[in-house]
């Protein structure tokens, strides 16, 4: 059994309540930080831990915190990114729903480190009921003195509130999130300035993912060095993986970074193998934005080494033969899956979610979707594959925010590794979704 630091208590009845959470060691990090540590010491521990942002980009959290501008007399903010909308990702929801206090505790400890008197949890609107759970937990925390004025009798005061979004994936991008938090359209800002200098209402702001903030709790409790002992190389600690698709046991798993991909897919402790005795065809390892890999390349790197669940190993080989850990949205597809159709669902998604500010993403995402639809209709030509390739290459790197890349990469990867599927449809002028029947049977059976 791997070590668990975030959701090890998820099976305990009523762990969502303050009393039970507290009885299982909750809020110890707040006590430790506020009573015996200086804010910079907390940041130092986070640096030592090697914690990297769990929202997708994997930027070292301690370093991000140390970039925060601290001008006199200007408030600073911590904003938690709970927008979780990357297809295949549902770990933050699980954590917040099951153990809301784990996030709130992390918010308090992190805010202490950053000197933030106010923090916000921006949660996607569709998770309205999770926002209720968080709000109930926050109310408990206020009542018990974990939030509010002079926490634990120290001179640290902190307020934390939840804001629900209105339904837009792009609000997961941190500057779009800040715009949305200010009550505006979720248009990403043009950077610089970065939020660390001018974020929420123009004030210095740190934006971190739910899991990143929750991980600060064990880091403060056990010390950064201890935390860094878990994992491999620069991938330290544990990571929540959302597993879905054609696996026997979909769900949220906390893994020690460094287990093999093979163990994760086939191990009984994790996904438990592919459903219905089918063979694995391909995996999207880190949410819809990251390149899809065929079985050979997801289980082993191009050099033939076992692929590990770490930032480095998953990206080994670059985009030619590798992928990314991303947000940890792990989607496994069996041998009957049409890669073209899967790509279509992704491209439809990005088209739907483009904010429309910059021309390549606004016009390119819709164009890609329309061409892919031709494949599903059996009207595509072979030249459409080249056109898709060209369009994605003209979006990538030319946009305001990384959604452009996120829309381009899946197209490039699907063509790179599964070009034959596109060509076959184009040549036969016919598309059949063979996995369809299995799904129907399954649905009818239950």
């Amino acid at each position, binding site marked *: 059994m791997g070590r668990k630091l975030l959701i090890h208590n998820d099976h305990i009845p009523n762990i969502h309540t303050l009393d039970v959470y507290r009885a299982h060691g909750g809020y110890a990090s707040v006590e430790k930080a506020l009573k015996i540590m200086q804010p910079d010491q907390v940041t130092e521990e986070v640096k030592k831990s090697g914690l990297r942002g769990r929202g997708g980009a994997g930027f070292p959290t301690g370093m991000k915190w140390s970039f925060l501008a601290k001008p006199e007399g200007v408030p600073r903010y911590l904003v938690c990114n709970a927008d979780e909308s990357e297809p295949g990702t549902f770990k933050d929801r699980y954590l917040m729903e099951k153990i809301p206090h784990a996030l709130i505790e992390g918010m308090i400890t992190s805010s202490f480190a950053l000197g933030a008197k106010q923090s916000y949890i921006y949660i996607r609107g569709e998770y309205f009921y999770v926002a*209720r759970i968080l709000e109930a937990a926050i109310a408990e925390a206020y009542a018990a003195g974990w939030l509010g004025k002079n926490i634990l009798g120290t001179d640290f005061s902190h307020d934390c509130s939840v*804001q*629900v979004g209105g*339904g*837009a994936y792009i609000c997961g991008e941190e500057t779009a999130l800040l715009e949305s938090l200010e009550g505006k359209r979720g248009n990403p800002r043009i950077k610089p300035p970065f939020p660390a200098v001018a974020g929420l209402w123009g004030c210095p702001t740190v934006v971190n993912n739910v899991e990143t903030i929750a991980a600060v709790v064990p880091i403060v409790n056990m010390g950064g060095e201890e935390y860094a002992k878990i994992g491999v190389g620069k991938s330290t600690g544990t990571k929540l993986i959302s597993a879905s698709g054609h696996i026997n046991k979909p769900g949220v798993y906390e893994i020690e970074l460094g287990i093999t991909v093979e163990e994760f897919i086939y191990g009984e402790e994790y996904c438990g193998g592919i459903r219905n005795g089918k063979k694995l065809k391909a995996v999207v390892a880190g949410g819809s934005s990251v390149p899809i890999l065929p079985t050979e390349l997801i289980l082993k790197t191009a050099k033939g080494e076992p692929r590990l669940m770490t930032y480095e190993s998953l990206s080994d080989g670059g985009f030619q033969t590798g992928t990314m850990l991303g947000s940890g949205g792990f989607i496994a597809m069996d041998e009957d899956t049409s890669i073209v159709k899967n790509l279509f669902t992704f491209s439809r998604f990005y088209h739907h979610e483009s904010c429309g500010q910059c021309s390549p993403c606004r016009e390119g995402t819709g164009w890609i979707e329309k061409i892919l639809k031709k494949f599903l209709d059996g009207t595509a030509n072979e030249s459409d594959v080249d056109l898709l390739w060209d369009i994605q290459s003209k979006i990538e790197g030319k946009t305001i925010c990384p959604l452009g890349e996120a829309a381009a990469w899946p197209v490039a990867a699907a063509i790179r590794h599964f070009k034959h599927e596109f060509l076959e449809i184009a040549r036969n002028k016919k598309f059949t979704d063979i996995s369809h029947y299995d799904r129907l049977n399954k649905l009818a059976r239950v």
Partner: protein
Amino acid sequence: MGSQVHGAQKFDNAKRAEIKFSDEAMKIVETIISRYPEGKQKSALLPVLHVAQAEFGGWLSPETMDYVASILNIKPVEVFEVASFYTMYNLKPVGKCVLEVCQTSSCWLNGAEDIVKYIEKKLNIKVGETTKDGMFTLKVAECLGSCGTAPMLQCGASYHENLTYEKVDTILENYRAEGKLRSYTDLDYKNTL
């Protein structure tokens, strides 16, 4: 895409005069506004629009949005811009229960398309339409963070997961029996995680 007429939503002054939050809703709105520093009340716009949508029939009419603008002391066009950006705000009347079926990858891999077809047939409507009795509107949605429990649909605040045809039958029957407007802000949500 056919030719669209835009910028021509009718605005009814008489209707506008009738719109007012209940005391209860107004209290919630005030609480939301109090979460932001002085002068930053515009930040409350998204949550307040959710309250307004629940309060005024499940959708945001131009009059409702104008009212929200007046409460937050911002220009009406700022509200129109925001409300039309996000997917959760209905700019046209909808049924009492809006069924949003996720259609993205993991849900598709697990039969979301069949669920959509099943509901279409059962309710005799197409995606985007509302049943004649005004009970249900069927929509498709993009990943709702329920991929491990796919296929799924959302109705108001409730997540319905690991769907089967039978489960869909039960869900629809229950909503129909209940017969009430379902909103994201509902407190009596059911989720099956």
